[in-house]
């Protein structure tokens, strides 16, 4: 709506912060994608049928569990790293409060 007023080039620090905000927005999308991956490892019970194929090709609970917890730790760490590089929200509050 107000993009006409925005400058094309910004200082390096502001640029970094905006990209960090992009990263913060995309992280849950990445997380959702990673959490869906185990579905691909499943034996496709619907088409192959509930028989011996399950034991042969399906991934075990142990593997999925280890994978999920690793993804989980990665997401928490990434969220922590990104969050502290974002502009402090409190500054905006103060500006809003005055303006």
């Amino acid at each position, binding site marked *: 709506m107000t993009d006409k007023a925005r400058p094309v080039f910004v200082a390096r620090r502001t640029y970094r912060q905006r990209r960090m905000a992009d990263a913060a927005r995309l992280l849950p999308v990445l997380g959702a994608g990673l959490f869906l991956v185990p579905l691909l490892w499943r034996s496709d019970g619907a088409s192959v049928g509930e028989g011996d194929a399950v034991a042969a090709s399906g991934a075990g*609970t142990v593997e999925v569990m280890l994978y999920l917890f690793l993804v989980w730790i990665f997401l928490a760490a990434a969220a922590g790293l990104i969050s502290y590089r974002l502009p402090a929200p409190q500054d905006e509050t103060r500006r809003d409060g005055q303006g």
Partner: protein
Amino acid sequence: MATLNIMVLVALAYVTLLFAVAFAADRAAARGRARWLRSPLVYTLSLSIYCTAWTYYGAVGFAARSGLEYVTIYLGPTLVVIGWWWTLRKMVRVGRSQRITSIADLISSRFGKSNALAVFVTLVALLGTTPYIALQLQSLTLSVVAFAEADPTREVAVNRQSTAFWVAAGMALFAILFGTRNLDANERHHGIVMAIALEAVVKLVALLAVGIFVVWGLSGGVSETLARIDRSAIAEFEVPGSRWVGLTLLSAAAFLCLPRMFQVMVVENEDERHLRTAAWAFPAYMMLMSLFVVPIAVVGLDLSPEGANPDLFVLTLPLMGGQEGLAILSFLGGFSSATSMVIVAAIAVSTMVSNHVVMPVWLWLTGGSAVMSGDVRLVAMRARRISIAITLFLGYLYFRLSGGGAALASIGLISFVGVAQFLPPLIGGLFWRGANRKGALAGLSVGFALWLYCLFLPSFGPSFLMPVSVLEQGAFGLSWLRPQALFGPAVLDPVIHAFLWSISLNTLIFIVVSIFSFPQPVERLQGAQFVNVFDHSGTTGGWTGGLAQSEDLLIMTQRIMGAQEAQALFAAAAREQGIGGYLPEPTPDFLVTLERALAGSVGAATAHAMISQIVGGASVSVQDLMAVADETAQIMEYSSQLEAKTQEQERTARQLRQVNEKLTQISLQKDAFLSQISHELRTPMTSIRAFSEILRDTGELTAEEESKYASIIHDEAIRLTRLLDDLLDLSVLENAQIVLNPEHGQLGGLIDRALMGAGLSEASIRVRRRPEDEAISLYTDLDRLAQVFINVMSNARKYCDAPNPELRIRVLREADHVAVDFIDNGSGIPAGEQGTIFEKFARVSETRAGGAGLGLAICREIMARLGGSITYVPGQEGAAFRVLAPMALPGQATAAQ
């Protein structure tokens, strides 16, 4: 071994500890020296009320039945929290800038402060929360029973119902004690948040301890445990894709919409920066909470006897292993999960019920006017307390009626689907300006109806609330209306089926109705405020003041916020506008501030309704509409400026008129006084002259006559002197020529002295005091202060026109000042004259005989010299004067010590 008894003792000690922690935190917060109370860690831990007893005990049962599926309940919230930059940040910002008190308040506030919407959301929330509370009671009771069964020395069976009842009563007490301290729901409940944070630590430690015991104690190490999982019945990852995705989405939606989550996440949020810590710390917390769930489930399945309840493995495994200490810790973990959830949920729901149901009904019952009667504050507070008790009682009732059967175990997800219906209006309201009230209402109604039909009613089992025929053949025999297989054959499981249909139809109808209907101005205004919360400066506008009566507003505000806070708010606003006293001009800015302040106590919709009663209907100014339309038409801009200028001029003109009126009045008073004073001077003069002539010219006077005439002359001379003294006093005071004689003294003694000096007796007027408030030592000119008191008191005696006159003396201690209020029960001073009573020669009414009208003018000058003030306080029962005196005379305090 007396495990059960020890367990009960430990639990009681733990409860005592929680009370003590909450009490200490409240005390520390009240003294304003508790920075650690506001740490981001406490905020993160308080979010853990998401993990209830249902997840604490139930996750293991869930895992024992269907493997890794349980983890979806945590994956959804994880995604929401790491995506805080999208939604949570905006929710918290909106919640703070609009002073939101609950999720119902947020939705109603966004859609034009509609109370219908608020009531609807409140009812859904209540319906969704009650079974959930019942579920917590059930978990607690089952865990107590598990203990009892493991205890061979027990003599009597545990009475499940009475256990549940006492637990519910205890939690109600806790919630009422620490949750309804202040009316302003926006103020933080430090005690409760602190207790919840402690409980969060306890449940995490307990679950980790049980997990470590199971893996290394019972199973013999990590690799052995993993091998055991591979050998178990849940070794395969067989979760249907629809459930995996559906439950993750559902838990994410519920995390945002649950009333209790909204309470800790938005309402209790102290600082937006806390979200940064929560962004990584809360996912880590949930990860740890679910780390040992599968091992515990598998080992439990291996070691427990056939038919054991897998929901209680967390408790029964340590008991079987003979680890009573660990079992008690585990019980405390479950206890913590249940109590923290129930307490916060009860507070959240009670806030909604009191703000959106009880208060509007009460306002309507009392004749629709907030000004007329009663103490709103007390009503709201009581409504909130009673709502807490009722919510918990309903939970208990549900627990009893449902008998704690299988129907309860599945209620967690059913409740999630119910509150998830708030998601479309919530997200739509935050991100789409076009979303409007009609759309939100229509969408919510459809979603809610589908939830009832497809999930809630069938959940009680066939033929309890829903006939078997409907369940199997659909309503009216239409097969496509089967509750668990709408529009086609049943391929999905019931929860996912209901979630999918209700949320998608809810969203669809919400969007379609929003697109094809037209919102009211207030909705468009609020929409712009919510969606662009990061750009807008945050003035709602919407009131064109001027017709509002500041005094009425003050009376109403006092009833809601309490006299002291309301007077402070009004006085601050008046100071900002450059006016003295307690009655600011009702500018639009002031009305918006006032509405926000009231919204913090009674919710946006009620606050809006109350102000519009007094102001006489809200209207949106051209300037506000400009912000909504976001168009740059120069003409509109120009006309809006013109309008603003016109308003400004009108206000100035009104102020000028007021000043002019005051000047004219003063001039008239001066004329009147001059004639009065010459009259007053002449009357004694005449009699003095007459009687002295008699004394001089008449030869034969008896001694009796002589002394009579002489005493008349004497009395008249005294009257003259007094009049002249007053005039002199005033002129000396005005020219700042007086010398003060500061002394040390007690306020109580001073008031006693003044009462005697003013000649106030029980027969003339009844005096009500609180001597315990008056024990304040002063260092000031006591004689002068007493003179002020005497003057105000004798005014009350002379002018109070009540049949049973009464004078209330109220002492309020402020930082370095003491405020003494003198309030009588007469008819007070008419608004038109309040401005001039402190002027010289002013008398309230010409008809009443009195002094020369110098008393209050002298008082004002004295108080100015003493570094204080005397003001008239409008909006009390009768005439009310506030004398504000410094406890130590300014400039002399150092000399005194």
